[in-house]
């Protein structure tokens, strides 16, 4: 069941400039799966809304959640200044993540771009735990290849970097091509231009692509209708061509959404 609860920070470190890796102690970890997210509340009372942050890893045994985030504004700046032992209020587990059953035993390519990389890690791990090793294609700006080791452990890893300092020069699509990778299914998270390219690619190849979308959120639980994405068909809940990213997503089949 969804809850708002207080979580204690087990550890936090800066793993690349402005990118923080935070481990939280919380029983919510037990219900968390790849593609889902939590809302993290700033303490500062002038910034009231929860910040959606994806599950990077969920360890149900140790009741710990790993969140990897980029400092983007006030809330994330505040989080980055917290230390082990501090508490943060979180709400979760939110969102409709990946259904991994249809992915098993397929040629899965996980694509992550920039701060869209962290959410793919839990998916790689869950797939591996179910005996399917995915291929990961990660796009970085430069040689700051955060989470590289983690992905190497749970998937076959290819890297692209914008400045060419590591792996293929360019973006994840360039790496895909350069490495001659083929996919039965793509799962992706990253900036909108990347997701659009993947949607197009998947349509051309006739393969399914599951993409994680972002939108500004207020409630995070499906009540406010703030976070919608246009859908091809009339949505079952809204009865218009809009689905709620926070509850119907954030993971959507690319062909179902207008991005």
């Amino acid at each position, binding site marked *: *069941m969804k809850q708002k609860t207080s979580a204690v920070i087990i550890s936090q470190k800066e793993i690349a400039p402005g990118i923080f890796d935070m481990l939280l102690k919380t029983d919510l970890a037990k219900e968390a799966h790849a593609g889902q997210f939590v809302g993290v509340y700033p303490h500062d009372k002038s910034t009231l809304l929860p910040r959606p942050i994806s599950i990077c890893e969920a360890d149900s045994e140790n009741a710990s959640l790993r969140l990897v985030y980029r400092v983007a504004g006030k809330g994330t700046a505040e989080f980055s200044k917290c230390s082990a032992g501090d508490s943060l209020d979180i709400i979760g587990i939110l969102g409709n993540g990946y259904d991994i059953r249809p992915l098993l035993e397929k040629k899965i390519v996980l694509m992550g771009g920039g701060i869209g990389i962290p959410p793919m890690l839990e998916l790689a791990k869950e797939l591996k735990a179910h005996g399917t090793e995915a291929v990961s294609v990660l796009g970085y700006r430069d040689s700051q290849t955060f989470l590289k080791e983690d992905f190497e452990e749970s998937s076959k890893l290819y890297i692209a970097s914008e400045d060419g300092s590591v792996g293929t020069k360019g973006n994840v699509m360039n790496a895909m091509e350069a490495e001659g990778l083929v996919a039965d299914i793509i799962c992706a998270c990253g900036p909108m231009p990347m997701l659009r390219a993947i949607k197009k690619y998947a349509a051309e190849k006739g393969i399914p692509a599951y993409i994680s979308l972002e939108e500004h959120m207020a409630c995070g639980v499906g009540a*406010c*209708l703030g976070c919608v*994405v246009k859908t091809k068909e009339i949505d079952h809940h809204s009865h*218009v061509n*809009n689905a709620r990213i926070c509850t119907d997503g954030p993971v959507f089949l690319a062909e179902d959404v207008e991005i």
Partner: protein
Amino acid sequence: MKTEIEIAGVKWKNPVTVGSGTFGSGMEYGEFVDLSRLGAVTTKGVANIPWPGNPTPRVTEVYGGMLNAIGLQNPGIDVFCERDLKFLEDYDTRVIVNVCGKSIQDYVDVVERLSDEKRVDMLEINVSCPNVKEGAIAFGQKTEALTEITKEIKKHAKQPVIMKLSPNVTDIAEMARAAEAAGADAISLINTITGMKIDISKRTFALANKTGGMSGPAIKPVAVRMVYQAAQAVKIPIIGMGGISTAEDALEFILAGATAVAVGAANFVNPYATIEVIEGIEDYMRRNKVEDIKELIGAVK
């Protein structure tokens, strides 16, 4: 200790409801709170047909609050009756259906469609949404238009009618009086205050709709003032809202003259806010030996 209140003949077990549009039809928050503990559930604005709402971004945060420009996305009255009203049948709480429209006829259609729905205890007429181009707020900013729509709805409504007023007016007392004179059974206020946020790095509007309705703790002093001014102006009951997050906030509205209160955007900040407000009011009454909540309504001196 009595927390029961009555509005237009409808008894609520306690004076706490939710701000329309901040709670869906209760389904989503049912995971966090027992809806049967609420005085009433006020549902998201519903029109005669499905509305797609505005483009995104539709919400953005501001100091001590937020702006929204949802644009009244809703599945239309048919789905609403079949799904949302049905869902609410299982709960022991009052149901207030918030109604929106572009023309008076739109509103009347919805009101008529609801007239035989047993689960609907009251109607709240949203003439104050700042986020849609036609209708809505236009009816809430001119006394003549407010009078006309109120009269028309009263002609067709089977349930008591609450007119939801806009704070984006020069004189809220005048609007309250117009609603009362036109036959409204109650008024609710405030809807959101029109605001704007600009992203200075992109030099764009933060919301696709440019402006949005402001809600949250930041607007509370304006809301309390308007509830007070309205309470001085009319005899019909008032449902007060605007920035209520705690029992202390709710009590300010009640002391200012509200018979009931609604928790709006605070649900997003704290999904348990409604229950905490209800319990906090009870605590306050116990500590201050208030036997009946009615003693507090309008009791500021």
